[in-house]
């Protein structure tokens, strides 16, 4: 049986993958997906703690995180669409009227 440490470490690796994605990529959609990756890594931490500690609240939090992810996806993608209609780009290098 894998121990809690394994699950948490896996979660930390996935979280960091997401962070590196946000820091290195320039495509707004891929940055958004990297953030989804981070949220999922956090969910794994919650579920792992919940299952090993025998406490249901961690799973409730995950339930809400999914609602939050859905809401963020709706608004974030709408922003991307509004941007694309103006400039035909989702590359944040091209998005620099204001100083970045």
């Amino acid at each position, binding site marked *: 049986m894998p121990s809690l440490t394994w699950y948490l470490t896996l979660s930390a690796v996935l979280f960091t993958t997401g962070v590196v994605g946000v820091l290195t990529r320039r495509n707004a959609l891929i940055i958004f997906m990297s953030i989804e990756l981070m949220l999922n890594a956090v969910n794994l931490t919650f579920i792992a*703690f919940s299952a090993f500690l025998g406490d249901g609240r961690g799973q409730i939090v995950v339930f809400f*995180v999914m609602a939050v992810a859905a809401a*963020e996806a709706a*608004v974030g993608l709408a*922003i991307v669409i509004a941007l694309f209609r103006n400039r035909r780009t989702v590359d944040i290098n091209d998005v620099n009227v*204001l100083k970045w």
Partner: protein
Amino acid sequence: MHDILNDTIASAPLWAIVVTGVATLLVHAWDEKSDKPVFWIALAGIGVSAVLTIWRAPVAGTAYSGMLKTGGAASAWTLLFLVATLLTLFIAWDSLGKAAAPRGEFTILVLFAVAGMIPFSAGNDLLAVFIGLEILSVSLYTLVGLTRRRFASNEAALKYFLLGAFAGGFFLYGIAFLYGAAQTTNIEDIARRFAQSNFPVLFLTGSALLLVGLAFKTGAVPFHMWVPDVYQGAPTAVTTFLITGGKAAAFGAFVTVFTMTLGHASARFAVVIGVLALCSMVFGNIAAIPQTDIKRMLAYSSIGHAGYMLIGVQTASVEGAGGVAFYLLSYILTSTGAFGVVAAMENEQGEGTRIEDFAGLGYTKPLLGALLSLFLFSLIGIPPFSGFFAKYYIFLTAIEHGDLWLVLIGVATSVVSLYFYLRVMVVMFFRQPGENQPVPEAGAWTMIAVVLSAAGVIALGLFPGTVLDLITSVF
């Protein structure tokens, strides 16, 4: 059933805002051109909520099985949000009307944002705090991108969204670690569990991650990179809301999560928060100097002001929290006033916010010029305006707490800030207006907001002690 009823009464200010938000949404969905009724319903809802907040203020407690703090300090924060929202709505009515931006949608989203601010700043459970944060953020992302045809607005919305969601991920990871360390997400239970001085490593990691998320929302250095772009790119009415309500909510949450509840942890993190304060004060006030756009300049100066408020936060005391709330009240009034004048200066395309566009304002529009000077004096912290006492109380608390180094840097950076604030006044009074420079027309609602703010700034300057005692008494 009885519990639900009691809880609902205890958190009535929140539900008043929620009901108003839904009502405005329904009215606006019924008739798309119903900006005016929506505006009036929103004003009425804010009024009702304010009355309910004051009514519940003496009864401090928690509602919904320990999810939400009600009364007491929560009331103080709620009142701050309501003041900020009311003044913002006044400014927005004229400013968005000029830009032909959707005022109805603006009003609805502002009300939803306030519905998020209340649990964000008064949550007693990290899950409630997180949901509040996300309601606030989702509403603000949309508001920033509200003028969709302006590319700057799109850009600001995208940057705010990506960085905000990124910081939200860190905040959430922090909650996960705290949950693992304490087996609960209830803030008071976590604090009780770790009341002793040796903190487990999971607890420290979790708290540090929460700190990152909160520092991002407050716009403290080094998590400030979104502030100038978002404040400049957003429609001015939205910038006003971000800089007043948004900042108040972030500091409310900072104080609630760190100072008031995780008090012991806060002492442990005092040096870290102190360093954030130091960096913010120095960077914000120096980076504001070369700016040519007044919105961007005020954005950088807001980073500096976040630094001053963080001095109050890091003392982790009731006096510090009261000082922060007083500072926020003063800052809300001053900023809405200043941004009200900026909104009046703007044209339909959102242009006219360069500092040189203010040339000669002191002659062409003496009242606007004088009022803007008053707000700038208050931002510098010159007596007898409220900004002086706001800084004074925070510095006093910090000295009593033994943080003289922060106070010295605070005073020094305030002197630096003289330069860029005074420069605007010099341009206003000692520079001739350009050839085809448009003469600004301030709408009636904007003038009401600006004059109310000015009255507030002067009143707070005249009776600072009374107000501060009132605020501190609820903490």
